């Protein structure tokens, strides 16, 4: 492509503007949606998956490391929130911070997993999420976590506030992705994904880049987990650590296209929309559909729906 020096900044500015507009539009739509549509829980679920998919996008899309146990951070956030409320009688926002802190600690503990190459990282991460679940749901810890019997946080139940907070988390996440797409740091992450050795030789700090992306991604999932605990207020360990969360986030992100802002959004709106029309009554049929979709995507469209446009030279936000 021939790009004249004068034209480039204008183009770049237009790109950033496009990204920002899309992010702001989605955030606004989800913020006003409850006044138009009365099923707030359904809207909350959409916000939750929009945020989780973008959070997964931060680590998988930009660094190529697939966290199959992404739900571990979500569950850590939910249980961090619940434990802070139950034992410290913390106000909800402080409890959110506790949840986010729990997710960050788990992420720090798991940073050595980056020594593993892609496939082993994914499997080890899955095992780690299960290990956290086994600990929290263990009857031996009933005094602390209530074990497998679940937690009840009816004292802080506030669906409107928690919905608003979840939209705030979504907004922050969307702008983080916009920043990653348009910043030097985001570019360095993608360089690491393409070829870590060449990136390191060009002066990119591989370890630092991956770790920051990893912590951001975990923080997002932890915050979503906290809002989930706040919104739902009664839940069991198998709900908070349900593999469904990781699976859906991965499928939605892959379906739309990684490392874009549009891809995961499209994935959630289309697939989670379908799930809510047919999936809840007959989950097996939905499972069959997304299983088939994954196989077809990997074989025929590994870069997701948006690659239909990007291959033809269009830039997708």
């Amino acid at each position, binding site marked *: 492509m021939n790009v004249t020096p004068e034209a480039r900044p204008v183009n770049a500015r237009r790109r950033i503007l496009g990204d920002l507009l899309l992010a702001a539009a989605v955030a606004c739509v989800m913020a006003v949606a409850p006044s138009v549509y009365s099923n707030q829980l359904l809207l909350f679920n959409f916000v939750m998956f929009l945020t989780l998919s973008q959070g997964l996008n931060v680590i998988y899309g930009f660094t190529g490391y*697939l966290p199959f146990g992404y739900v571990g951070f979500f569950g850590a956030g939910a249980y961090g929130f619940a434990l802070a409320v139950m034992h410290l009688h913390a106000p909800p926002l402080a409890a959110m911070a506790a949840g986010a802190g729990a997710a960050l600690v788990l992420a720090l503990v798991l940073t050595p997993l980056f020594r593993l190459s892609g*496939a082993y990282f994914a*499997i*080890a991460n899955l095992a*780690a999420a299960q*290990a956290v679940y086994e600990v929290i749901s263990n009857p031996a810890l009933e005094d602390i976590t209530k074990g497998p019997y679940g937690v009840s946080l009816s004292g802080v139940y506030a669906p409107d506030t928690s919905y608003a907070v979840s939209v705030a988390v979504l907004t922050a996440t969307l702008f983080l992705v916009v920043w990653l797409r348009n910043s030097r740091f985001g570019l360095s992450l993608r360089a690491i994904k393409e070829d870590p050795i060449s990136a390191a030789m060009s002066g990119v700090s591989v370890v630092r880049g991956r770790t920051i992306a990893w912590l951001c991604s975990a923080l997002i999932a932890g915050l979503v987990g906290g809002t989930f605990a706040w919104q739902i207020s009664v839940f069991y360990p198998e709900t908070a650590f349900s593999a469904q969360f990781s699976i859906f986030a991965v499928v939605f992100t892959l379906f739309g296209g990684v490392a874009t802002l549009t891809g995961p959004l499209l994935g959630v709106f289309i697939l989670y929309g379908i799930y809510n029309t047919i999936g809840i009554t007959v989950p097996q*049929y939905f499972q069959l559909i997304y*299983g088939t979709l*994954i196989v077809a995507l*990997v074989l025929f469209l590994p870069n997701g729906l948006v690659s239909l446009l990007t291959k033809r030279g269009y830039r997708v936000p």
Partner: protein
Amino acid sequence: MLTGAIISGLMFGLYFTLVGLGLNLVFGVMRIVNLAHGDFLMLGSFAAYWLFTLFGLHPLLAALAVLVVFVAIGLPIYYGVVPRLLIARDSEMLSIILFFGLSQMIEAIASIAFGTNERSIPGRVLGSGPVSFLGQRLPSAWVFGAAVSAVAVAGVYLYLYRTRLGTLTRAVMVSREEALATGIDVHRISAIAFGIGIALAGIAGVFAPFMLGSVTPAMGADINVAAFAVIVVGTLGNPLGTVIGGIIYGVGLMLMQTYLSSWANLLPNLLLIGVLLIRPEGLFGRAVRRA
């Protein structure tokens, strides 16, 4: 109690060797991760369940039927997806995602076809009464499962080291490119290995109702973690190292269940993460390492 835990651990170790062996064979030959391994095992369990319930077929005969049918199913699956995967840039990573999709398809179809109820086969089918061994009384179904596993492992050994196809398979394991250059039909060898890999999962599945308790269409995910723990503890890509991994896993599991039963479910996860972190290169073997 300790002797009992170790002896039953060895039996379960042999069984878990069988659970992981197919996964490791597929990884060793194709360098792809078959995340649907546990679901093929589940299909084997349901095959055994229906063959027993409808026709009263003995699990041993069911295992033979599963062996033949699964090898036959494996060939078209291999040719359908694996050659396309292997030309991709990051085939290992893509294989995880693709086979994860396949595992979801299998689980969904199994739930639609069989329902989500737990199924089991009565243990007395494999002989009545416990077997006494070194002063320990063990359920005869366990002894049976361990014996069949040992036979299957020996069969894989004989295949790899005593047949011409096995020699070619080992050549592909060492270097796919060099095998191709010497005129070996790499795809045919790999397709057969893939078939054998899922057939081994199927045979392990036939005995799952006796060794692991009742079976459901959703059991695959847990089996996968156990199978991974076994093959990572043994040597990844070396099918016979799986025996070591299986035995460490089985004995560890039985010791945990005897002395720390409420934490026993943590074992496969911790074993897997621990070994991956402490000795990744030693356990992965030479061929997997990249720059």
